[in-house]
C-alpha cells in the first residue's frame, strides 16, 4: 500500500475534476458518490499504509516522482514523505474528512450548488493531503496555498451574499500575509541548506548550535506562516468571519484540519524549533495569549458558530503552547482529539441550524434536547470532551499540555488554566442556551423542527465515540496508562522534546485532575442556574454592559483597529498615489519635459526671424566671442 501513496491525494483530485467539470450535468447522487467515494478509497489506502508502517517500525519512506522546478543549483522534487507524523495527519484528514463528506450529503441536499460543493471539498482534500504528505517545504507550500484557495472558495460558497464574499477575501488575504512569512522562511532554508527536502534539511541542521541566529530567523518566518493559517494573534480575525461558509466546511476546514496545518508544520520542523529556544518561547506566548483572548471573546457571542470559531482559535492557541514547550507529541495529541470533538461540535451545530431552518442565533434556540435527541446526546459528549471532563478525549490531551506548561513556566500555566475555566464557561453557556430552557424561536421553526437524516446523524455518532474514547491513546502514567501516542511519535520527535511528562510528580497530576473536575461541576451548576431558565428574556444577555463585557462582545475591536491602521491607510495611499503622484508628479515631469522641449524649440524658432540685420549682428558677436576666447587661450598657455 505504501507504493500507492500517490493515489491518496490523487483520488480526491480526480473526484474534483469529475464533479468540477460536470457540475450541472451530474446528478446529486452521483456527485455524492464520487465525492465521498474518492475520500473513502483514500482512507483505505491510508489505513493500509498505517498498518505497513507498524510492521516497518516507523521508518520513514520517501517517494520521488519527478523534478518539478530546476533553476541553477536549486532543484525541487515532486516527492512525498511517509512517516508517522504524516500518517497520523492523513488518518485524521481522510477519516474525519470522510465523515464530514457523508454528513454533507444530508446537509447540502437542497442546495443548488451540490456538485460544486463536493468538487471544492475534494479539492480541499487533495490540497490538505499534499500538505501533510509533501516531502519538502515547497510541496508543503503547494498544499498550504491550495487549502487556502479552497477555504476561500468555500467561505464564499454562497457568493451572492456580499458579506460572505468579503469574509472569503479576508481569509485569503490574511493567509497570504502569513504566506509571505512562510516564503521568506523557505528562501532562507534554501539559502542555508541548499535544499528544502525535510530529511536533508533536518540531518544538516543538527550541526547548528542551539540559539543559532539563522535557525531562529527561519523558525520565526515559518511561524508567521503558521499564525496566518492557524489563526493566531495577530492574524486570527479571519477565522470567525470564515463561518460564513456552509457548516460542514467550518467543521472540516476551519476546525479539524486546515487550521491545524500550522501546528503540523511546526511539529514537522521540530528539530529546528528545538534549536531555537527564543522562537519556541515566542510561539508559546503567542499561543497562550491567543487562547486566553479568544476564550474570552467566546463568552459573549450569540451566533452558535461564532462561539465555536473562537473556541477553535483558543484551542489552537493551546496547541501552539505545547509546540512552544517542545511538547510536540502533546500538540499532535490535541490536534487529534480536537479534530474529533470540534468537528462533532460543528456538525452538531449544523444539525441544529438545519433543524431550525438556518437559525444561528442561540438566543432564539433553547429546549432543543427534546426535539433533537441524537444531536443532543452527541453534543453533550462533545461538550464534556472539550471542557476536559475525564475520561473524555479532551481531558487527556489538555491535561498533557497543562502539565507541560506547569513544569516549564508558571505564567503559561496560569494563562492556560484561566483559559480552561473560560472554555468551561462558554461551552456550558452554549450548551444550555441551545438545548435547555424553553424554545425561543418562531412558530414556523418549531413546526418544522426535525432530527437530521441518517447521513447526518451517523457521522455524529461515530465522532461521538471517537470524542469519548480518543483520549485512550494517551493515558498518562499517573493513571497507570501507557502513552501510546508519544511512543508512536518517538521516531519523529525523538529527543527533541525538552519536557518529559514524567518530570512532573504524580501528585501534581492527581491534583490537577481533581481540581479541574470540581471546577467543571461548579461551573456546570453556575451556568445551569443562569441559562437554564424557562424564559431567557433579554435580561440575562443585556445585563449592565461592563467594559469587559463590551470588549468581549466586540471582539476587542480588533477588526475596527485593522480597518483604521491598515485598510483605510492602504486605500488612502492608493488614491494618493494615483491622484497625486501618478497624475501630478510623474506624469507632470514627463509632460513637463515635453513642454520644455517645445518651449525651447519655439525660442530657437524665433531666432530664425529672417531679419538680415539680426543675422549680421549675431555673426559679429560670434566672431568677437571666438577671437576673445582664443586670446584668453593663448594668454593662459
Amino acid at each position: 500500500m505504501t507504493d500507492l501513496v500517490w493515489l491518496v491525494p490523487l483520488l480526491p483530485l480526480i473526484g474534483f475534476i469529475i464533479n468540477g467539470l460536470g457540475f450541472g450535468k451530474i446528478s446529486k447522487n452521483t456527485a455524492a458518490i464520487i465525492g465521498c467515494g474518492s475520500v473513502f478509497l483514500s482512507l483505505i489506502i491510508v489505513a493500509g499504509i498505517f498498518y505497513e508502517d507498524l510492521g516497518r517500525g516507523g521508518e520513514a519512506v520517501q517517494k520521488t516522482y519527478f523534478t518539478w522546478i530546476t533553476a541553477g543549483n536549486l532543484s525541487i522534487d515532486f516527492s512525498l514523505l511517509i512517516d508517522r507524523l504524516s500518517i497520523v495527519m492523513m488518518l485524521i484528514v481522510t477519516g474525519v474528512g470522510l465523515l464530514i463528506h457523508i454528513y454533507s450529503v444530508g446537509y447540502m441536499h437542497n442546495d443548488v450548488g451540490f456538485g460544486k460543493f463536493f468538487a471544492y471539498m475534494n479539492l480541499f482534500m487533495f490540497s490538505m493531503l499534499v500538505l501533510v504528505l509533501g516531502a519538502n517545504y515547497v510541496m508543503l507550500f503547494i498544499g498550504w496555498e491550495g487549502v487556502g484557495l479552497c477555504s476561500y472558495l468555500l467561505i464564499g460558497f454562497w457568493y451572492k451574499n456580499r458579506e460572505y464574499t468579503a469574509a472569503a477575501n479576508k481569509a485569503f488575504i490574511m493567509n497570504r500575509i502569513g504566506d509571505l512569512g512562510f516564503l521568506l522562511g523557505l528562501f532562507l532554508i534554501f539559502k542555508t541548506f541548499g535544499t528544502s527536502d525535510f530529511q536533508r534539511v533536518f540531518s544538516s541542521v543538527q550541526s547548528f548550535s542551539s540559539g543559532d541566529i539563522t535557525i531562529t530567523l527561519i523558525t520565526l518566518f515559518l511561524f508567521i506562516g503558521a499564525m496566518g493559517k492557524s489563526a493566531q494573534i495577530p492574524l486570527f480575525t479571519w477565522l470567525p468571519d470564515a463561518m460564513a461558509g456552509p457548516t460542514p466546511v467550518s467543521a472540516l476546514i476551519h476546525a479539524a484540519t486546515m487550521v491545524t496545518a500550522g501546528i503540523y508544520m511546526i511539529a514537522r520542523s521540530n528539530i529546528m524549533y528545538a534549536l531555537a529556544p527564543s522562537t519556541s518561547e515566542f510561539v508559546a506566548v503567542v499561543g497562550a495569549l491567543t487562547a486566553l483572548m479568544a476564550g474570552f471573546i467566546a463568552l459573549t457571542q450569540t451566533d452558535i458558530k461564532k462561539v465555536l470559531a473562537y473556541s477553535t482559535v483558543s484551542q489552537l492557541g493551546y496547541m501552539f503552547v505545547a509546540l512552544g514547550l517542545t511538547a510536540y507529541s502533546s500538540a499532535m495529541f490535541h490536534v487529534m482529539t480536537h479534530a474529533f470533538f470540534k468537528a462533532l461540535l460543528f456538525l452538531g451545530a449544523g444539525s441544529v441550524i438545519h433543524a431550525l431552518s438556518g437559525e444561528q442565533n442561540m438566543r432564539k434556540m433553547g429546549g432543543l434536547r427534546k426535539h433533537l435527541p441524537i444531536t443532543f446526546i452527541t453534543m453533550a459528549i462533545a461538550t464534556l470532551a472539550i471542557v476536559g471532563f475525564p475520561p473524555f478525549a479532551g481531558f487527556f490531551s489538555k491535561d498533557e499540555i497543562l502539565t507541560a506548561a506547569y513544569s516549564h513556566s508558571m505564567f503559561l500555566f496560569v494563562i492556560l488554566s484561566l483559559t480552561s475555566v473560560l472554555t468551561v464557561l462558554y461551552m456550558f453557556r452554549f450548551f444550555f442556551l441551545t438545548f435547555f430552557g424553553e424554545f425561543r424561536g418562531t412558530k414556523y421553526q418549531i413546526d418544522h423542527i426535525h432530527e437530521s437524516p441518517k447521513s447526518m446523524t451517523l457521522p455524529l455518532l461515530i465522532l461521538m465515540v471517537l470524542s469519548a474514547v480518543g483520549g485512550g491513546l494517551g493515558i498518562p502514567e499517573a493513571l497507570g496508562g501507557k502513552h501510546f501516542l508519544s511512543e508512536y511519535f518517538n521516531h519523529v520527535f525523538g529527543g527533541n522534546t525538552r519536557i518529559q511528562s514524567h518530570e512532573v510528580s504524580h501528585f501534581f497530576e492527581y491534583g490537577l485532575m481533581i481540581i479541574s473536575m470540581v471546577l467543571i461541576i461548579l461551573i456546570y451548576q453556575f451556568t445551569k442556574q443562569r441559562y437554564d431558565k424557562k424564559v431567557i428574556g433579554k435580561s440575562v444577555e443585556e445585563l449592565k454592559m461592563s467594559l469587559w463585557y463590551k470588549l468581549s462582545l466586540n471582539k476587542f475591536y480588533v477588526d475596527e483597529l485593522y480597518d483604521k491602521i491598515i485598510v483605510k491607510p492602504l486605500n488612502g495611499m492608493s488614491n494618493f498615489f494615483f491622484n497625486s503622484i501618478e497624475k501630478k508628479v510623474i506624469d507632470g515631469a514627463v509632460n513637463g519635459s515635453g513642454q520644455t522641449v517645445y518651449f525651447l524649440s519655439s525660442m530657437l524658432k524665433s531666432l530664425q526671424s529672417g531679419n538680415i540685420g539680426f543675422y549680421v549682428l549675431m555673426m559679429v558677436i560670434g566672431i568677437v566671442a571666438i577671437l576673445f576666447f582664443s586670446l584668453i587661450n593663448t594668454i593662459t598657455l
Partner: protein
Amino acid sequence: MLTGLLLLIPLLFMIVSLLMKGKQSGYVALVSSVVSLFISLCMAFTFQHDDTVQFELNYSWISSFGIHFHLGVDGISLILILLTTFLTPFIILTSLQKETDNSNVFFALILLMQAGILGAFTAMDSFLFYMSYEVALIPIYFICGLWGGENRIAVALKFFIYTLAGSLFMLVSIIYLYLQTPGNHSFEISEFYKLNLSSSQQSWIFWGFFLAFAVKIPIFPFHSWQPSTYTIAPTAGTMLLAGIMLKMGLYGLIRFVLPIAPEAVAHWNTLAILLCVCGIIYGSVIAIRQNDLKKLVAFSSIAHVGLIAAGIFSMNAQGIQGAMIQMFNHGVNAVALFFLIDLLERRSGTRLMDKFGGIASVNKRFAVVFAIVMLGSIGLPMTNGFVGEFLLLFGVYQWNMYAAMFAGLTIILGAVYMLRLYRNVFFGEISEASTSILSMSMLERIISYKLVALIILLGIFPNLLLNISAPAVNKLLNLIAHHSNLSSIL
C-alpha cells in the same frame, strides 16, 4: 533557415493581408500566425538543449560599417520566440471577434509588429536589434493612434516619443560599443561581450541601455505612458504591448546589460532594484482602487514586470531563470486577462467594475475561466505564475533579504486587488451589465480553454521552459563571473 522563415512569413503575409478586404485579411493574418507558430515549434523540437546559438543565418549587410544580417537562436531567445508565436494567433483571433475599420491595414500592422519583435529576439547583431526594436514600435503606434479609444492621438504620440527618446540612449550606447570593438569594428553582440570595459565605461553603457529598457518595460518611474496607452489601445494593441512587446526591454537587459556591463550592474543594481521594488508596491497599491478593469490590469502589470526586472538585476541563476519563465507566464496571463476583459466589454459595452456583479450566477463557465486566469496571475502554486514569482523572489532574496520582503508584498497586494475585482464582478447580485454575459461563443471557449490549459500545464511542468533557457542562462552567468574584477565585488 527556420529563423529566416520566421521573419519572412509575417512579412510576406503582411503584403497579402494588405491586398485583402475586411475579415479576409484577418484570416490571412491568422494563417500567417499559425504558420509562424508551427515553425517555432519545429525549432523548439529540434533545438539542442545546450548553450550554443542555433539556427543561425548570417549575411553581410552594410559591410562598410560591419553590420551583419545575423540571426540566431539560443535558449533565451527561443522562449521569447515561443511566447510571440503562441500569443499572436490569440491576439488575431481576439481582433477577429469584432468589426474593425480598415482591417487590412490593422492586421498587416500586427504582422509587421510580429516580424519586428521576432527580429529583435533573434538578432545577433546589435544594429539589427536596434532596428527591429524600432520597427516594432511603428505599427503599435499606428494601432493605438488609429484604432484606439478616447484621446488616442495624444496618448499614442506620448508613448511613441517617450519610447523613442528612451531608445536613442541605447543607440548611442551601441555606437559607442561599436567604436570600442577592435580592428574594423563590428556590431556583433558577441563581440561586445569580449570588450574589456573600464568601470566608468560600463556605468555609461549601463545607464544608456537602462534608460531605453526602463521606458519600454516600464520600470517605475518611467512608466507613465503605460497605463494610458494600455487603456486607450484596442485590445489587440494592449495584448501586443503587455504580452510581448515589453519583453523586448527585459530581453535587452539580459542580452546586453548583464553581459556587457556586469560590473556596472553589480554597482548600480541597488538603485535599479530599489526602483523595481518601488514599482511593485506602487503599481499594486494603485491597482487596489481602480474601477476600470483594463487600467487595473495595466497597473498590476507594472508590479509584475517590476518583479521580473528585479530578478534580472539580482544577477543569479534563480533570478534570471525566474525572469525567463515569468516573461512567458506574464505574457500568457496578461493576454488571457485582456481577452476576458475584452469579452466583457464587447458584450456589455463597459469595463467599469462597479457596473458588473453576479456573473458567476449568469455564466459559470466564464467565471471559472476567469478564476483560473486570476489565480495564475496572483501566483497560486500549480499555476504558471507561482513558479516565476517563486524563483524571482528567491533570486531577489539571495541578493538582499529586505528587498525580497518588500518585493514579496506583491503576493499580498496582488491578492487584494484581484480578489476585489473578482468579488465585484463575479459575486453578489446580478447587475444589468452582467446579464449580457450569458454565453461564450465556440471560438471564445476554445481560446480561453487553451490559455487556461497553458496556465495549468506550465504550473505543473515548468521545466518544459526552464530546461530550454537553462544552458544559455548558465553561460551568461559564467560570462559575468569571468569578467574582470567582478568576483571581488560579488
